[in-house]
C-alpha cells in the first residue's frame, strides 16, 4: 500500500507529483542528518528509518571525498540492482540542504527519474518557505512524562 508522511506540508504536492511522474516505488526527503522530512510510496520497499540514515551517510561520505579532492560536490549517486535501483541526490532549498532518496523498479528508468527529479527540485525550491523561528514545543514539566516513557521502554 502506498503511504505518505510529511513533516512539513509544503513538500507534499511536489513529492506526490514526482512519485507519480517518475513511476517511483518510494521517495524519501530527508535532512543531511538522516531525519525523514517526507516520504511517499511503497514503504515496504525498504526500512524507512535505516534507509534514511544510510542514505544520509552515503551522501556525507561521498561529499567528504569530493571535498578532499577539491571538487565542490559529486551530486547525484545511482545504484542499479536486479529488481530495484536507487537515485540519491542533494537538493538546495530555502529551508537548507535536503537529500532525496528515490527507490524505483523495472517499470521506469534512471533517465526518467533524473528528468522528473530536476522538476521536483525546482518545485521544492519554489514551495519552500524561509526558515522560521519556533517557540517552545514541550511543556516545562516534560521530564515527568519522559521518565515514565523511559521506564516503560525499559520495563522498570
Amino acid at each position, binding site marked *: 500500500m502506498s503511504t505518505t*508522511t*510529511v*513533516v*512539513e*506540508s509544503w513538500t507534499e504536492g511536489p513529492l506526490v507529483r514526482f512519485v507519480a511522474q517518475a513511476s517511483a516505488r518510494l521517495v524519501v526527503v530527508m*535532512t*543531511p*542528518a*538522516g*531525519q*525523514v*522530512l517526507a516520504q511517499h510510496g511503497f514503504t515496504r520497499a525498504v*526500512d524507512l*528509518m*535505516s534507509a534514511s*540514515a*544510510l542514505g544520509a*551517510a552515503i551522501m*556525507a*561520505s561521498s561529499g*567528504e571525498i569530493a571535498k578532499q579532492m577539491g571538487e565542490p560536490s559529486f551530486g547525484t549517486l545511482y545504484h542499479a540492482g536486479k529488481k530495484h535501483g536507487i537515485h540519491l541526490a542533494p537538493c538546495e532549498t530555502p529551508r537548507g540542504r535536503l537529500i532525496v532518496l528515490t527507490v524505483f523498479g523495472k517499470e521506469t528508468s534512471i533517465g526518467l527519474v533524473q528528468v522528473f527529479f530536476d522538476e521536483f527540485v525546482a518545485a521544492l525550491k519554489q514551495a519552500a518557505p524561509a526558515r522560521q523561528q*519556533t*517557540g*517552545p*514545543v*514541550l*511543556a*516545562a*514539566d*516534560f*521530564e515527568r*512524562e*519522559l*521518565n515514565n*516513557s*523511559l521506564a*516503560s*521502554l*525499559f*520495563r*522498570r
Partner: protein
Amino acid sequence: MSLVNFTTREITCKIVYYGPGRSGKTSNLQYVYGQVPDDRRGRMVSLATQTDRTLFFDFLPLDLGSISGFTTKFQLYTVPGQVYYNATRKLVLQGADGVVFVADSQMRQLDENIESLQNLHVNVLEHGIDIRTLPMVLQYNKQDLPRELILAPEELDEALNFRALQAFPADALHGPGVFETLKAISAEVLRRLSAAAPGRR
C-alpha cells in the same frame, strides 16, 4: 537540530555515542536494543568491519512514546572509535542534538579517553558548533572490572569532566548505567525544546 512535526505531532532527535575505540559505545546500543520491546524500536543497523569493529556507525531508532502530546523518537548512533576513522566519525556528528561520551574506565586507557574527548571538541567545532551549547553527558564504562585496573568515577571526573557534566558509572555489557545515561541525555536534549529552556521564560 531536533525535527519537529507539528502536523503529526512528532519529535525526532539524534543522539551520538562518542568515545575511544572499544570503550563500549556499540555495547550501549546493543543493550538498549535487547531491553526495549519490538514495537518501540526499529531495526539496528551496524556498519562494522569483519572483526566487528565499527566502521562507520551503528544506528538504532527508538520510540520513546508521547511527551507533552508529541510522539518522541530518538535516533541513537555510535561513531567508530579508532583514531584511523576520524573522517567518518566527524560525518556521524553532523546534525547531532546530543552526545554521550563513553569513556573507558581502565587506567591504561586514560590517554585514549582524553585524546578522544579533544577530538570530539575539534570535530564539533568543525561543524560550526560551540561544544558548550551541545547537550552532553559522560559515561564511565567498565566499572565492573577489578578495582586495581580502573579509575574511580571521581578520578575520571577530575581528568575528563572539567565542564561538570552529568556523569554515570556503567557496565554497558550487562546494563548498569545504560538506562541512566540515556535518561539523562534525553532530558538534556528535550529541555532545549521545552518552555523551561533558558531564555524562553
